[in-house]
């Protein structure tokens, strides 16, 4: 007989954990829109943001100042990433250099964080909600910090959908994504659009770092890499470039992970994520909500 309480616990926790993956997947989408580049430094960006906040807090700045300084710092790093490791490499459409370049920047940030703050996990204080703040839903305690991440992911999805479909900025991004040279001819500052997309992606990493770090309670230099991989699977599952896909993909992945862990084996929890990645690429490479690209010959 099915224990509904147990199943509900797994599903609710899956949604919560999945919302973390969604938040990371949103960050992947922004740079994908303009350059078709998946920024594999996104996870270390997230870690670096958390570390920067911790540093500014330890200096004695209030939360709001620490967050603003962190956002400013990570924007600069985002610009450097785009200028140094992406722009020179995306000129050639067949180049795969951006994969190694963004990954290289990520590993560099990880090493830099180890050098500056040490290799050990550092405690991250509660932000907005304490770790003991819960709200009961259908008899299950839902962490308010997780719900905040879920709400933020939903909000980001709505804003992104609105921007892409209703604003001139969204159209510019689509144009740059399709053909940056043609977009330039049409008067769109392609390079600026790309740079701004990397700044926005870095800012999203900042938001993710700020909201996710209190859930784990500790931040170590390898913190971002581990969850970035699952965020990447969520982005591919939902459809790379789709905001709706990022949200639904993340939550679907989280729920599947927890159900597999609860009913089959906890050892298979993360393994199933990669099985999904392989399956989705084999059966539906554009993901659940991605747009199938048609190449005219």
């Amino acid at each position, binding site marked *: 007989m099915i224990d509904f309480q147990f199943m509900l616990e797994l599903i609710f926790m899956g949604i919560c954990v999945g919302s973390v993956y969604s938040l990371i997947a949103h960050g992947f989408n922004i740079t994908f829109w303009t350059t078709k580049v998946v920024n594999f430094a996104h996870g270390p960006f997230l870690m670096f943001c958390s570390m920067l906040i911790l540093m500014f807090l330890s200096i004695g700045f209030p939360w709001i100042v620490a967050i603003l300084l962190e956002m400013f710092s990570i924007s600069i790093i985002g610009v450097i990433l785009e200028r140094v490791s992406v722009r020179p490499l995306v000129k050639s459409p067949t180049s795969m250099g951006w994969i190694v370049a963004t990954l290289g920047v990520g590993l560099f940030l990880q090493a830099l964080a180890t050098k500056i703050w040490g290799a050990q996990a550092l405690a991250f204080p509660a932000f907005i909600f304490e770790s003991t703040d819960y709200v009961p839903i259908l008899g299950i305690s839902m962490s308010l910090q997780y719900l905040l991440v879920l709400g933020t992911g939903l909000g980001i999805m709505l804003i992104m959908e609105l921007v892409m479909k209703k604003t001139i900025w969204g159209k510019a991004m689509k144009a740059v994504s399709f053909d940056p040279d043609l977009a330039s001819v049409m008067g769109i500052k392609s390079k600026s659009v790309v740079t701004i997309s990397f700044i926005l992606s870095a800012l999203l990493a900042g938001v993710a770092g700020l909201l996710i770090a209190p859930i784990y309670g500790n931040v170590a230099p390898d913190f971002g*890499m581990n969850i970035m991989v699952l965020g990447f699977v969520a982005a591919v599952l939902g459809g790379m470039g789709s905001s709706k896909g990022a949200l639904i993909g993340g939550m679907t992945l989280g729920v599947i992970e927890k159900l597999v862990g609860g009913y089959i084996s906890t050892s298979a929890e993360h393994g199933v994520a990669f099985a999904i990645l392989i399956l989705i690429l084999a059966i539906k490479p554009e993901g659940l909500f991605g747009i199938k690209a048609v190449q005219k010959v």
Partner: protein
Amino acid sequence: MNKRYSKIVCGGLLLSVFMVIGTACSSSGNQVDGDPSETIKIGMTSALTGPYSEYGEGNKRGVELAIQKWNDDGGINGKTIEVEILDDQLVPDTAAINLQQLLDDEEIVAIIGPAGSGPAMATVPITEANGMIHINPVAQTPEITYPNGTDHGPRKNVFSFALQNDVESEVLGSFAGEKWNKIGLIHESTAYGKTGMDLVEGVLEDKFSIEAVAREEYNQKAPDMTAQLAKLKKAGAEVIVCVGLGADLANIRKGMSRLDMNIPLVATNGALSLPYKEGAGDLVVGTIGTMIGVFGDDPLSPEAEEFAEAYSEAYGKDRYWGDRDNPQLFMSLSVSNGYDAANVLFEAIKNADSTESSKIIEAMENIQNLNGVNASYSFSETKHHAIDIEHIGLFEYVKEGDEIILVPYEK
């Protein structure tokens, strides 16, 4: 689009490869040169950098403090002590390569081993084959010292100053078995976690005829353990017994709270570490953990007092020391174990009046009731480990005003 996806998948695969090898590539040395006839040189491989460097760096500090103490007192029989320390980042292969490099140095007369069970298991067969004395400061798996089980003899060359799994599990299992009937078990998926929990299960079955209601495992640094905890809850556990490290325990404790599991958490020494206390915050109150009890004594023993003074003079009251006037309990496993290990080794070299491994080993086996920080040390031909049940205490987090402190658990 499909080509782009192929690239993305390649990127994902590259990422996975880098994540696996990322921490395994660097090593650093700390070498002191001197006249070989006037020096006694010790070799050490430990995790000095990387995500698991807390024990390795602490052990290094302990060994260096002991060397400083002996050299200030004139060295061993007039000879200055030197140490060459290589970084293994707790990677078994790197530790084995480091060890080979140390053994190639003919001046090195003794080895102080790595700060974890994996690399320790990778290095002991090499020193055993070589016959070189090998000191195990922290790795908890009993097989490092007793390859055929603790009811059989030890490796001739290995002496352990660690809190062995069997000793810790005996205390943990006995405590849980005495107090609860429905016990849920959870452990990390490493050799440390698995062997430790096997031993706890053995104690529960043999001494109390209790079969755990469920047993779950997790990978170190797993971001979420909800599924494991939900299963333990479903099985009706009245207590959670855990073998794991501090940061993971914090995650477990938060997960328990999220699932409204208002039952006690009893865990190995990781529960008394700073990452647990910092990570779980106020939720630590009520958690019970096992630990070498020396820094819980009030007043401290003269040896612990001397060590504490030397440490604070050299490093100040830092992260290893903790946030109170006396060193935190956890320092007995991160620093003072290395300090004791080096002191006892030097005493044996002094007593042997020789740097031949066979004579140092004989002198180690003859050491009786030598007072150190963590324990009074006695070894024999059949007993090569130092820390026993009588050295272990149970400690509990309690709230005192606004502060959360650790106090000896009152049964």
